[in-house]
Structure formats: C-alpha cells, structure tokens
C-alpha cells in the first residue's frame, strides 16, 4: 500500500489539513483520519456518522424474540403435559424467556454490526502510525493517484506542526 499522510499535534491543525484536502478535490471517503480518542470538538470527527446500527439491533431483537417463542412453543407442544388443567403453552412464564432472548438478540446483532462495519479491515484501509497512540492525529490519503503525491505532501504539510510522511 502507498500512502501520504501528515501527523498533527492538535485538532485544529488536523482540521486544516482535512479542509485543504477537500479544497484540493478529495472526497471525504478518500481521506483517512485517525486519532487516539473521538474528536467530537472537530468537524472531521463527524465524518461517517450515519449508521443502520439501531435498526439492525431492532432486527436482532425481533429474531431473538422469534427464536424464543418458537423454542418455548415447540417444546410445550411437542411434549404436552397436562398439569391440573393449566394451558400447555402459558404466556406469562414464557414471556420471561422471550424477553431475555429478545435482548440477547439485539445485543449480539449490535456487536456483529460493529465488527463487520468497523473492525474488519478492508482493502486499501490499512494506513496507521503508532504515533497516534501518543496523541498525534493522522490525516492522509491511501493509495493516491500517480503524480499526485508531491501536491498532497505540500497540502498536508501546510498546517502548523505538521510532519508529513510518505510510504
């Protein structure tokens, strides 16, 4: 992988770098920003915010609910036991198991969505510098177009405190 990136000591200079890359014609999806903490006080911290995670969690909950209902209903009807004329499938006690598996379904769906959408590495998205751990903010471009590297180096090097690296 080839990449050009700058390391910035604070959010303001990183924001300048992002703004300059945008002004140079790069879309947000082409810009990589990496920080050691969420940067809620910077505009670039709002990138990629939209997510279907809440809806997927709801779908997971519904799946868990269906499994629990099926499990308790099938069990009761497969081996029906007449206990003093009580109903074979009783809603009140089964609601407890249905509730627990509903919540488990939504929790597992949430974690699954996080892993698939944010943790599994994708092609061309492996740029990293361990200096981020020490508080530096990385702004860069992965797999830049041929001939664009000198321009990107100049753009990324302009904000105060920038250290530009090319790999």
């Amino acid at each position, binding site marked *: 992988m080839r990449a050009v990136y700058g390391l910035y000591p604070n*959010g303001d200079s990183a924001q300048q770098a992002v703004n300059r890359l945008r002004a140079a014609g790069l879309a947000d999806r082409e810009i*990589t*920003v*990496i*920080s*050691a*903490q*969420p*940067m*809620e*006080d*910077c505009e*670039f*911290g*709002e*990138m*990629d*915010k939209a*997510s279907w*995670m*809440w809806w997927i*969690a709801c779908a997971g*909950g519904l799946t868990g609910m269906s499994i629990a209902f099926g*499990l*308790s209903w099938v*069990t*009761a009807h*497969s*081996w029906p036991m007449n206990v003093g004329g009580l109903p074979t499938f*009783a809603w009140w*006690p*089964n609601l*407890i*198991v249905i*509730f*627990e*598996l509903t*919540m*488990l379904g*939504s*929790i*597992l769906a*949430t*974690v699954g*969505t*996080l*892993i698939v*959408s*944010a*943790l*599994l*590495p994708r092609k061309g998205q492996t*740029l*990293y510098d*361990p200096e*981020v*751990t*020490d*508080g530096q903010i990385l702004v860069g471009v992965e797999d830049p177009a041929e001939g664009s590297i000198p321009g990107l180096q100049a753009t990324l090097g302009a904000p105060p405190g920038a250290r530009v690296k090319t790999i």
Partner: protein
Amino acid sequence: MTQPSGSKINDDLLRPLFHTSWRFFLLVAVFGGIVALGLSTWMWQARNGYGITGIKWPVYWGFYITSFVFWIGISHAGTLISAILRLVNAGWRRPVTRCAEAITGFALMIGATFPIIHLGRPWLAFWLAPYPSDRLIWPNFRSPLVWDFFAINTYLTGSLLFLFLPIIPDFAVVRDKSTGLRRKIYGALAMGWRGTPKQWHRLETAMQIMAVAIIPVAVSVHTIVSFDFSMAPVPTWNTTIFGPYFVAGAIFSGIAGLLIAMALLRKFLRLEEYLLPLHFDNLGKLLLVMALLWGYFVFNERLVTYYGNEPAHMAVFWRTQSGTFAPLYWTMVTCNFVLPLILLGIRRFRTITGCVIASIGIVIGMWLERFLIIVPALGHKYLPYSFGIYRPTPPEIIIASATFGAMCLLYVLFAKTVPIISMWELKAADHLPAKHPHSTAKEQRLGDSHA
C-alpha cells in the same frame, strides 16, 4: 486538579501492564491458593456426596444458594451503574466504568457456578440447557430455575461484551507500545482498531444500544432470582415485594463492592490522580440513597407480614426478630442501615475511608440478608414435620469463602492485563463539543477536570 495529559494517561495506566512487582506474584499466590483450596474441597464434595454438607431436609438451600444470590447481587455494581451513567452522560463516570464493569463479569461468573456447586451431580448441569436430547425431556419453561438460566446467561454475555467493546481502543494502545508476543496478542485483541471517525462513531453507537438493552436485562436478572423464592409456597417468600426488593438490594451491595474495589485499585496501582475523592463522594451519596431504599423495603416487608399475622409467617418473623437468628438479623440491620446512615449521611465522615468502612459493612450485611431470607423460612415451614435446623459444615464455608478469593484473583489478573481505567474515554474528555447536547456545563467541567 487538571486533567492529566494523553501521554501521562498512557504512562500511568499502562504501568501495571509493563512492570510487574513482587506484590503481584504474592497476591496471585495467596488468592490462587485460596481458589485451589476451594476447588479441591468442591471435588471432595462431588466425590463423597452431599452428605458432607449441612444441607439436608428440610433446609435444602444453605450457604451455596445464599452465595449465589449474593454474587448475582454484587454483579449489579458494574454494568447497570455504568450503563445508567453512560446514558445520562455523567462526566465523572469515565474513570469508574471499567472497574465497575469488570466486577459484573467476574461476579456473574462466580455466581453462576453456585447452582452447579449446589448440584449433587454437577456433571449433569447441562440438562438445564434447552437442546433436543434423546431423553425426550426438555427444560420446563415454567420453572424459575430455567428463567435463571436464560437471564443469567443473557446478562453474562451482554456484560462481558459491554466490558470488552470499550477496551478494544485501549488494546490498540497496548499493541502500539508492546513488542514481540505481547504485541501479537494485543494486536489480535485490538481487532484491527485504528481510530477512524467511523470506528469511534460505531463504537459509541454500539455502547449506547448495549446500555439501553442491558439496563432492563440487569433489572430482570435479579427480579428472576427473586422469583426463585417468591414463586414458592414457603412462609415469608410468596410476596410481591421480592422483585424490587431484590433489585434494590443488588444495586446496594453492588455499589458497595465497587467502592471497595476502587479504593484498593487507587491504593495499590497509585491511581490517586484518576480515582478522586469526588468519585467516592458521588458513589457514597448513591449508596446512602440505596441504604434508605433498602430500609424502606425491609420496613414494608416486615410490617405487612406482621399485620397479615399468618401463624407460619409469624413463626419465621419471630425467629429472625428475637429468636435464634436475631443476632444475625440485627447485625444485618446495623451493617445495612445504621452504619451507612452515620458514615455516609454525615458529610464529615463521607471520606474515602468512611465509604470503604460503610461498604465492607454493607457487603457483610447483604450476605446476611440473603442467608436470613433463605434459611429461617426453609427451617420452619407450615407443619411441624417440616421443621429443622441448618448448620453449615467446613466444606460449605471453605467453598463459599474461596469465591471471595476467586473474585480477588480474577480482578488482580484483569488489572495486570487490561488498563483498569478507560484511557480513550479520559482523553476524550478534552475533546467534547463546545455545547454538548446531552450534558450540562457542570457535567462537562467534571468530565474535563475530574473535579
């Protein structure tokens, strides 16, 4: 006091991971020895049968079920408190949440072993799991014990994931600071974490969803544990108050456990700059509220039983008020109500030491509470043929005590392998938006400065 810088946070909180002192080995040896003693006693019990315990007709639930309810209660410290503080975006939660969530995970694991320890044939514990077996018997979904299985496993799974997810960015920090095998292990645990805005947003959304889901699960778990009792026709058990009474008691003992753990971590890991008197003061106030709530529930439960005046209920009532169990009962009241009211209600005494003394008292008092719910009632049911006494034997005492060693061992190992305070959340306090939509100016200040 100002917020420590990012590199100082790294240095302070990674120190226990990279530097091992003789104290760590000593603690592991001591607690490991206690756990080994407990395990070998359990194996001895499995080999020789239940006859070596004091559990016999009519008191079939003794130390083990008392400890089961106690540890499930302690587990309410973490995930529930952490989830509530996360949802209300309380700035002071940041250094506290991971200490608390770890307690939940370990307490649940320990608590969940007690029903298995309690089995005469523990190797058949898998019969609780719903699977299509060739014995053509499925678990009875109308049984509170099966509800326990589902509730505890859901809470355990949710709590471990709730603990693990926010550690991922900190695993990445350890990965970057390590070399060799340690780097590989933490690299795998970090799951490719880099710290892009997308990853931060997904992680925070996931934590919000988990917090929303885990709060009702936490409440349900101890309600269902209370159903183990309140669904049974035993004097003083079959009451509608047990659900909320157990939940309040669980949160009460959980916060007490958390305060003790925080004080020990602060002392031994030198975290004075992170776990501040403010955190103890805030949790101390919460503990005081829970003490009052506990007193309210006990008063309700006692008064209603007294006015009901059912002979069987009154027999159990007087056994605890002025009979055989009275010394334990009044010790419980002193530990759970009188002591916290004095130490936490009077501002001058609500120091770190005061909070820890009150918490130790509460942990003892809450264990006694569970014992006093179970044993006096089982030993004095409706007819004289079912009257009996229970005396715990050394194996029960050793096994129940060893679980405290297990809790300490797990916590020591956790603090040695994982930053015990969430580093990224501390650093994030410097980067809150100017006008955060969910927090007041005071909360933001608390988050920024910890004070």
